[in-house]
């Protein structure tokens, strides 16, 4: 009873401070539960320092391919999106890549076996080069968080998943099929090539780190998926031989970007 009367005499500020201490001490018993204070507000920091709702975002990213050892694909991606709420935005993306066959592909070409008509061979797959494209993209950002560097610097971040669809310009250069008939080694620059514009889908995920209310950095991994083909059962001495075999091509890229929120 004496304790109760003491508490009633405390100023409200002291009462809140005491409750705060209690909350600190009792926190270990309920790690993930939200505890509401006497003012009805939760006793943990839930506020988003950088709200996203109803804002436009313009971003520039630099990307490099991760899963195409036979092809080098480095480029940039420009995106513009609108955030309808805290966790969803949609927009468009435009990308362009510098592309070429890799050193490994060159080594393989240098050691290609002699061309003969006797044993049909398949073309090496996954040599497509995504030179550019445009996609409509939607992003969902379910997780907003904060990390503390050296107990001093707070870094707010967001994680997101993205899904998109569009068109891409594909350049295909075969590593092992020659465009010139015959049994001699294929001359440099005379391997089979073709270009096409085709559909592309993408899915990915990433982290956004807020620098300020208007600027953020992000790192993400995304996979571009597109219909592709390689030629099977080729007579290596005859460039017109072989049958097209379809498969789902992919380019997985890692990118770093900077974005401005308006």
């Amino acid at each position, binding site marked *: 009873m004496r304790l109760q009367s003491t508490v009633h005499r405390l100023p409200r*500020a002291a009462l809140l401070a005491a409750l*705060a201490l209690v909350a600190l001490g009792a926190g270990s018993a309920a790690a993930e539960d939200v505890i509401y*204070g006497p003012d009805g*507000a939760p*006793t943990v920091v839930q506020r988003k320092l950088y709200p996203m709702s109803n804002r436009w975002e313009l971003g520039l990213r630099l990307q490099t391919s991760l899963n195409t050892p036979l092809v080098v694909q480095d480029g940039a991606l420009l995106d513009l999106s609108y955030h309808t709420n805290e966790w969803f935005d949609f927009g468009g993306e435009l990308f362009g890549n510098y592309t070429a066959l890799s050193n490994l592909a060159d080594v393989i070409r240098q050691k290609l076996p002699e061309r003969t008509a006797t044993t049909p061979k398949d073309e090496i797959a996954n040599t497509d080069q995504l030179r550019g494209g445009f996609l409509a993209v939607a992003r969902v950002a379910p997780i907003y968080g*904060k990390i503390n560097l050296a107990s001093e610097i707070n870094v707010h971040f967001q994680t997101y998943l993205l899904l998109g669809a569009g068109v891409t310009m594909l350049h295909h250069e075969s590593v092992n099929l020659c465009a010139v008939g015959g049994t001699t080694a294929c001359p440099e620059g005379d391997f089979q090539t073709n270009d096409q514009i085709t559909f592309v889908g993408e899915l990915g995920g990433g982290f956004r780190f807020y620098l300020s209310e208007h600027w953020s950095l992000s790192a993400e991994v995304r996979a571009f998926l597109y219909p592709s083909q390689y030629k099977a059962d080729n007579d290596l001495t005859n460039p017109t031989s072989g049958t097209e075999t379809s498969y789902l091509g992919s380019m997985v890229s890692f990118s770093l970007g900077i974005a401005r929120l308006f």
Partner: protein
Amino acid sequence: MRTHALIVFALAAFLGSAAHAQSARPIAPASAADGTQPAGESDDDVQAVHVVEKRPFTEGGRLELSLFAPIQVNTKFTAHIGMGLEVAYHIRENLAVQIGGLWNPIAQQSTLTEELVNKVNQQPLAADALLLQAGGLVGLELMPIYGKLNIFDGKILKLGFYLNVGLGLAKTELQLQSSSSPEGRTFGDTGIRPMAGLGAGFRVFLTDRFTLRLEIRDLVYSAYVSTVNGCNYSDTVAISHNGTGATVSSSCNISAFGSDPKGDAAVAAAQIQTPSADVVNNLTAYLGLSFLF
């Protein structure tokens, strides 16, 4: 007096929070210039204060058992998918010693390697295609960064970013035949190699006992291969010519090449003809769940 003592105590706890993972921030615009809210201000201002959130539990002095699903990320010439188990003792909140093991039931040549074998009769050197069958590491983990996240503005979870380093041993092998060969994939034992691991990742505390972990770890092991199934280059050449009738060194296990050893031995000979002093970098993503005792 007692009231003042409480306030001072609260303020001290408030200011001392820099040592913890979180700092105090007001939910509404605060009158204080630095964004913090002294406990002695008017009631209206105080109501907006969201208190310092102390880490609700500590890992210090606790054992952690983790189960992982490691998947190789840099699958240029090889592909690995496996499982791992790790035990860590958290000496302090941010420092742990750990011992772990890894077993890759799927350790094989990548699609590209098999394409090269089948389509252009080429294959990478042993140094590039050495497979990690199993391994173990002992090391340290440092978790210098703490934070928290919320999901769709709802549930709040703690997280920590960590680095780890370890030393250990790797059980290695070479794939000798591709999946399209009549016998299917065949492998040759290349022995045990020293291995080091360097990783970075984060753990999300689902509760005070269960955590979700995602980590990228670079497993580095020696790619020097001079024997396959205990047989050196001369042995493998002899077997490729004479089969089971070959005269080989005492350490050479001909039967490990199968009942018709000529083909596998020829491949092995080609791969170990010029041993490399390189190391293999097996970049692996570890997704795991752990339990804190």
